[in-house]
Structure formats: structure tokens, C-alpha cells
């Protein structure tokens, strides 16, 4: 398995690399176009802000390269959001691989059903449900994954998992060879390992 992780100006790239290595797979962190094109699998990680990440990708012509990839590609967190059509975060035009729109969580001042204050960003473990992809083979419905995000992808034709926080949203997307997850499989214990392992065989 020749796995490449896209190197760009976003956080958590090393965490993803370590998680892949824990599975016994070696990976290359690179922004080299030839290396990315020839990889068997590509992971597009990311924690950060949408507009500066998009500007960075465009400046290095990585935006077109990612769209043209034909092997399985997995976007994680910001990576997934950048694969969507548009993000409300600083009004950013994204890659448009998925047709879904990325919106900001809006805080309801009333709090949740227990009267607890709802906080943004969402930080912590939440369920993934309505799982519809080989990416989730062997992953039980309502499994817990670790999330850190203030923006979410709306529902659409590409939705393959849903999560509830303030409202329901897409916690995973898939279109052809492109996959995206809002949560962090690299930090989601055994469930996350399983999802990463599944990505190696989709």
C-alpha cells in the first residue's frame, strides 16, 4: 500500500500519520504532485481555517490536482469541508467535489432539552448514524467518534453518515472515489481504526 498524506498549512497532519503507522501502514507526507498522483490512497487531513487553507492549495495548484485524483481520497475534518462546494467560513469557494454546503453552527440561546448551554465549536465524542458506505463496514450504528468543529456540512446526495449537534448534519460524505469524514478517525479509538482500515480496502 502506497499511501500519501497531503502536506499543506493545516494542523493534525502528524496525528493522522501516526494513526496510519499504528495500523502497520507506512505513509508519505507530501505536496509533490507526482507522488500524490501515483499513490494508491490519498488522505487530505486538516484542522484550521477554510479560506487560508484554500488559498494555500490554489497557490500550489493542489486544488486542481485533488479534484483530478482517481484513487480513493479521504478528507478529514477541514479536509472534508474543503472538498465541499462552499464554506460559510470567510465565504470560501471550495473544491466542489461534494455538492454540500458548509455552514456555521448557530447557538440557540435557549440551550438544549436539559437546559444546558450549547457550545460552539463542538468538542468531544458524538454518535455517527445512518451509516451508508463500505467505509463503515463492521462499524455499529451510533458508534462514537471524536469531533472538533464549528462548521458543519449540510445534508445532500453525498451524505453517508449523520450526527446530531444543534441540528442533524452530514458527518461523512462520499462521491465516487472521494470520501470525507467530519470527525477525527485518528483520535476515535477502535472505531476510528476500523474506519481507517476500511479506507485501505474501499
Amino acid at each position: 500500500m502506497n499511501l500519501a498524506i497531503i502536506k499543506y498549512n493545516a494542523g493534525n497532519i502528524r496525528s493522522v500519520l501516526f494513526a496510519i503507522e499504528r495500523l502497520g501502514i507506512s505513509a508519505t507526507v507530501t505536496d509533490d504532485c507526482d507522488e500524490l498522483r501515483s499513490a494508491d490512497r490519498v488522505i487530505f487531513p486538516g484542522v484550521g481555517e477554510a479560506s487560508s487553507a484554500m488559498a494555500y492549495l490554489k497557490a500550489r495548484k493542489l486544488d486542481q490536482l485533488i479534484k483530478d485524483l482517481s484513487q480513493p481520497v479521504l478528507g478529514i475534518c477541514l479536509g472534508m469541508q474543503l472538498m465541499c462546494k462552499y464554506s460559510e467560513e470567510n465565504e470560501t469557494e471550495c473544491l466542489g467535489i461534494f455538492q454540500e454546503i458548509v455552514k456555521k453552527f448557530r447557538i440557540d440561546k435557549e440551550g438544549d432539552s436539559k437546559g444546558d448551554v450549547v457550545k460552539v465549536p463542538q468538542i468531544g465524542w458524538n454518535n455517527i448514524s445512518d451509516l451508508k458506505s463500505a467505509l463503515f463496514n463492521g462499524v455499529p450504528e451510533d458508534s462514537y467518534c471524536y469531533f472538533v468543529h464549528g462548521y458543519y456540512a449540510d445534508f445532500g446526495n453525498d451524505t453517508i453518515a449523520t450526527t446530531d449537534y444543534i441540528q442533524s448534519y452530514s458527518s461523512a460524505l462520499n462521491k465516487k472515489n472521494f470520501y470525507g469524514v467530519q470527525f477525527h478517525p485518528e483520535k476515535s479509538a477502535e472505531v476510528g481504526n476500523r474506519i481507517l482500515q476500511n479506507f485501505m480496502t474501499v
Partner: protein
Amino acid sequence: MLTKRIIPCLDVKDGRTVKGTNFVNLRDAGDPVDLGEIYALRGADELVFLDITATVEKRKTLSEMVRRIAHRINIPFTVGGGVSDIRDVEMLLNSGADKITINSAAFKRPSLISDLARNFGSQCVVLAIDTKKESDGVWWVYLQGGRIRANETCITWARRGVDLGAGEILVTSMDHDGTKHGFALDITRTLSTELPVPVIASGGAGQMNHFTDVFQIAKADAALAASIFHFGEIEIRALKTYLKERSINVRI
């Protein structure tokens, strides 16, 4: 539904855990990485490693430890203890830490919080506050491991920290820490209900019902404890089952 988090805290000095533990079947009970891995397997939602090394070698031993943790552990972890500048943070994040805690250094120089939030994102900046309720009934901020009282109240400093970009607040009540009589419910509740970011309660956990109270009454988003986990007085899975039976949403 988002769950409440249970967070064991490990005190580390020169790359070794400080407080004793009574874990059996552990290759090396003094190794924070082995211990952290056990907690992760037993259902901890996150881990906090608090480094109290005070030698010139600190930076090097800490970054090596963080790297080992990041290689082995598949849940989020936070590192803190004497973090004082952006270089420390960059080193810890590059070694694989998910978040860092800052405390006295941020109080002395609040722009540290905004610098970190701008460079690395609020999600990795945890503002730790040690606090104590004085006879005037007010919760005051304490610095330097609780040795110095600052002329600022806990809620004022927490609010300012959030405005500057802190992504979470870790509040430790010095009155409760080590007592095993329960968390400080009043200050935790004040912070949890008035701040738009998650609040981690710390100090005083002794029994399972203390966690029920800190989540239900004080509305904490997460609860941190050390000795009750290290000495096996409370097992994480048993605690989570107990909480779930009381309608508190936890990851099991």
C-alpha cells in the same frame, strides 16, 4: 448526542509518572505512555499529561514523551505544565499533542492566548485556572501552582481568556483538590453556564456521585481526576455505566 467526557490526569516528572499507581499487569507503571494506553483501553475520553519537570532538560524529555504518546494512543490528549511561549507550544503540537494547557504564563501575558489561537486555532488552547474561594465569598485566581493570589476573579479571567481565543477552560478548585469531597459545583456552574466554550472541572473527585453532581448540577462538559483512577478506587467503565444509569450521556 455529544457526551460528557471523563479525563484522567497524569502528573509527569522527567518522563515518569509522579504519583504511584496500583495497576497490575502493567509492564511499567511509572511509564506515562503505558498508563495512558491502559486508560484509553478502559474508556477514558481524553488524557491530560501535566509535566512538573523543572530542569533545563525539560523541553527535550517532554517532546520525546509526547512523541511516544502520540504514536501509541488513539484518543485526544492534552499536555501542560509550565508552557510559557509559542515555541513550547509549537514543539508540543509538532510532537503530536492535540491540545496544550496554559496557566500562569497566560495570566502574566494574556496576548499569549491570542497568539496561540491565531497560530494554531482555539481548539488546541486550554486555559487552566487554579482558583480558591476566599472569606469574601469570591473565587480568586491563583498562580504559580497556587502559591500566589492574583488580583483577579476566576470568572473575569476566564471570560477574558475566552475573548482572547481560549477554546476550553480547565478549572481546578484548590479548596477541593485532594479532599475527595466532590467538585466545586458553584464556580464550575458559573463558568459552564456563562461561557460559550466547554468547561473541564478538576479537583475533589472521590466518589461516583461527585461526577453526577458536576455534570447535572454544575453543567460541566468534562470532569478530570487523577488519584481515584490511579489507585483504582473508581474504574472508568464502572463510572460510565453508573452515569449512564443516571441519564448522563457518556461514551460506552
